[in-house]
């Protein structure tokens, strides 16, 4: 089964190729997921549209109220970029915990999102920041909240001729951010579960809570029950002790080769409690 790899000269060209070959074509960026699937014979595509040369899709741009990320921004750049790591320490943390140096140096943010793994480490923090993903096709462009982008493992709402071109990430000044991933070793490991929180606090009161989990559903999951449980509440031990029920209401992890449902539940509950305790501590320290 021969596969054509076509180097797109610019975005126009890439979108044209995607429009021409439709479901048979896939954009190729870092290739850290795609090439494995290709070699394992698990890729339906006949044409790979290499977008590696589209350097104008690799950027981190600061605007007054948001940071814009290009789809080809390498995961490694998220760790070191001064703006991203300053505005989104939890996002930079996720990037640092992601895969290995080799994969971080090749793999792109657009690829990690487009691969649509429920374990994609970069996604839960982006959900908690309220990030949107921007898609482009010959027909035009559109954006949607990143948590709405996923349909299932490996499946997204991008049409066959659409390509992720970038992300808009609203700044969260003063918010408490948290990310933790769990694996059986310290590096280069697919998460058993991950948790991200972004809390806007007013004294010890939670004004706004955004919470997301990885590996707890067929898609990276925004935990709306947990969010509404926390929002407007006073952050104290009683609130922390009660979060378990809300977490269990949101998540639906499965037993798989990386861990049992019950273990993933415990991890996510513990991480959420830890995050809330950390938030409380930071508020009290600031006071």
């Amino acid at each position, binding site marked *: 089964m021969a596969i054509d790899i076509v180097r797109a000269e610019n975005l126009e060209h890439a979108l044209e190729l995607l429009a021409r070959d439709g479901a048979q074509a896939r954009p190729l960026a870092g290739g850290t997921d795609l090439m494995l699937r290709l070699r394992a014979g698990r890729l339906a595509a006949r044409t790979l549209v290499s977008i590696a040369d589209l350097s104008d899709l690799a950027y981190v741009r600061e605007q007054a109220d948001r940071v814009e990320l290009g789809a080809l921004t390498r995961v490694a750049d998220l760790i070191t970029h001064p703006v991203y790591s300053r505005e989104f320490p939890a996002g930079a943390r996720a990037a640092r915990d992601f895969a*290995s140096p080799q994969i971080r140096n090749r793999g792109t943010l657009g690829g990690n999102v487009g691969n649509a793994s429920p374990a994609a480490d970069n996604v839960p923090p982006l959900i908690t920041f309220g990030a949107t993903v921007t898609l482009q096709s010959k027909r035009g462009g559109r954006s949607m909240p990143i948590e709405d982008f996923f349909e299932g493992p490996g499946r997204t709402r991008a049409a066959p001729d659409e390509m992720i071109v970038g992300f808009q990430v609203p700044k969260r000044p003063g918010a408490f951010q948290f990310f933790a991933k*769990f*694996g*059986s*070793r*310290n*590096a*280069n*490991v*697919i998460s*058993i579960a991950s948790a991200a929180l972004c809390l806007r606090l007013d004294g010890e009161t939670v004004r706004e809570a955004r919470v997301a989990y990885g590996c707890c559903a067929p898609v990276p999951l925004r935990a709306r029950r947990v969010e509404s449980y926390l929002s407007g509440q006073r952050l104290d031990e009683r609130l922390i002790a009660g979060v378990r029920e809300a977490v269990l209401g949101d998540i639906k992890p499965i037993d798989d*080769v*990386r*861990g*049992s449902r*019950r*273990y993933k539940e*415990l*991890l996510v509950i*513990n*991480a959420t409690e*830890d995050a809330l305790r950390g938030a409380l501590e930071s508020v009290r320290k600031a006071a």
Partner: protein
Amino acid sequence: MGETLRNIGTRARRVDALEKVTGRARYVDDLELVGMLHLKALTSAHAHAELLSIDTRAAESMPGVFAVVTGKDVPGENQIGVQIADQPLLASGKVRQMSDRIALVAADTAEHAEAAVRAIKVEYRPLPVITHTDEALAPGAVKIHENGNVMTKKQVIRGDVEQGFAAAAAIVEDVYEVNYQEHAYLEPNGCIAIPEPDGGVTIHASAQAPFYIQKAVARVLGVDYARVRVIQATTGGGFGGKEDYPSEPSACAAVLAMRTGRPVKFVYDRAQDLAWSTKRHRMKVTNKIGADGEGRITAAQVRIDCDAGGYTGLSAIVSERSNSTAFGPYRTPTARVDTYVVYTNNLFGGAYRGFGTPQTTFAMEAQMDELAARLGLSPAEIRRRNILGPGDETTTCQKLTESVPGIETFEAALARSGYEQKRREFEAFNQTSRWLKKGIGIGACMYGGGLHAGGQFLEGSGALVHLRPDGSVLVSIGGTELGQGAFTVAAQCAAETLGVALEHVRVTPSSTDFVTDSGPTVASRTTVMSGNAVIDAARQLKGRILEAACELYGVPADEIELREGQVLKRDGTRLGSLKELANTAFAVKKVNLSAQGWYAPPRKTWDNARGNGDAYSSYCFAMQVAEVEVDLRSGRTRVVRVTAAHDVGQVINRTLIEGQIEGGVVQGVGYALMEDLKLDQGRCLNPSFTDYLIPTTLDVPEVDIVLIEQPHSAGPFGAKGIGEPSLIPAAAAVANAVSEAVGYRFRRLPLTPERVLMSLEEAGKLR
């Protein structure tokens, strides 16, 4: 000796360092030959089934296909069982594990071969799959082989164990279970078979034991050993996984090379290697220890159920080591071991660094901690009171005589690690720390160097040393270079004995054409066996050239010294160069400048019925202390530091010894904490390094090494082996540290975060 050693105890650079770090070394998959074909195998779709029919017709007419063979096409004997003839090369009649080969295809490209493999149609009648030794041993269990599911039974009987237990003040008895471990060598299995015009075959293989491959290939082809030449290709790691197993792909490639008349390459990808090759055995260890009021062991009893998988392979030999050294470095006045080697339909158990003892060590070391707690002793004190010393007898009633620094090694590990003080500090820390718990644990081992008495028919090693007329030296050994540094040690032994500078010694790739059957490179035996063989050959050469020197310089031979390529008088006066001497000896005196060396240890006595006798030629001690931190929120364990004290006889190459110990510790940490092959009905569910996790550099603890040197007269310059003792106690030490940190005894490995957290949750220890 008595003279200053110039090439021994150094940090000499590996002889193969440059070729490996520059990428110039050629591994099997780097070799391309004209007309070469690629081999792919069809393996079973069931772990246990009758084989009803195989239809290869479609595959035979696929593009690029040169040959498709099944069991009936094997020209010699369709059999590769090393010890017991229970394993066909290609399945016939039934399949007993997922890795059983049904058919082989050779084609012009790997892709064509793969496509043809998929076109082969096989009909099976599935049989019940036996997934645990308990199921295999249950009454009425389906028989995997005609003679039943117990492959063999071994035992050790020492005194009256019942009497020993009657005299005990405390007894602990528990069941421990350990999972598989994959070798995870960098290079998967691979070989090339080249048909030779004389009707023989040449094999280039990534392998530890070229002589095993020679016998296996001769058997399946029905040709003489002398017509089978096996050359070890540069090998990217083995750890036991390339002891017997490479005979299987080599025999497959040989059959197809003979069939097609072309070179045939058979290289596994990682998923195939993980699913097909041998593993460290799953074991169930039921360990019962009794001690008197002072903590001195009075009786030790163990039952070992070793899960062999579908065939014998090396399992009976592996279990001999479990059987003989099940109680570690401790005195056992009365003892009883019962070892059952059991067929199942799981993965194929085989050789793996430590050879059946990391499992029993994990159980024994946990039991020592339990016994200590029962008697109100510290884990260190109970061990101190039981460690074997000179004059003591082992469990197999072997008297320990020479180089027995068990207690010295133990005390060195305790002192260097600050064990007692840290233990108190961690206890205090854990009182106040809610989620992070610290622990310190001991792992102790006594390792018998070389092959067991039961395998001594293989125990001898050769070397061939040529002194070239320019004073350079060419060495061939029967042992193999696996990354452990065997060739560097061989070169150092030659350089030291012949007084040649190390850079003028070259070691050839190991080949069955150069030296006689030297057994496998296993059992931490190669420094001792090949080292001694090289010294034997080099001494012969030295004797001959000193005689020539005596005539040439008019100085008595015992007044002449060879040092770093120079010929000197004892008083240091220079007489000439080795180059000049070698050339004159060769050209003028017609001296034979080639010598065959040989080394075999004295014969050992062994009573198989009672498991008594001299199990091993010598023993070495390994004592490790692990410090861990356990996070009760995730169950994750971080190994902070491992202090590793090792009795090595004499250091030959300090850098290589440290590398062995660091590597062994890390493999032990992986075994203790994360390496977890998962099976469903005999099928491996995680045959990839994405889901079978081994430690990364970020998981490696600080390894603090202490070397104890008490030379053993049988070792080259006094050296003992280090390959396996570096790994054996590590997992036990880590597991004991984790158990101590969280106050809960773990009896299964690995201690994955999930196992730790869920066990504590179930035990009500979390809230």
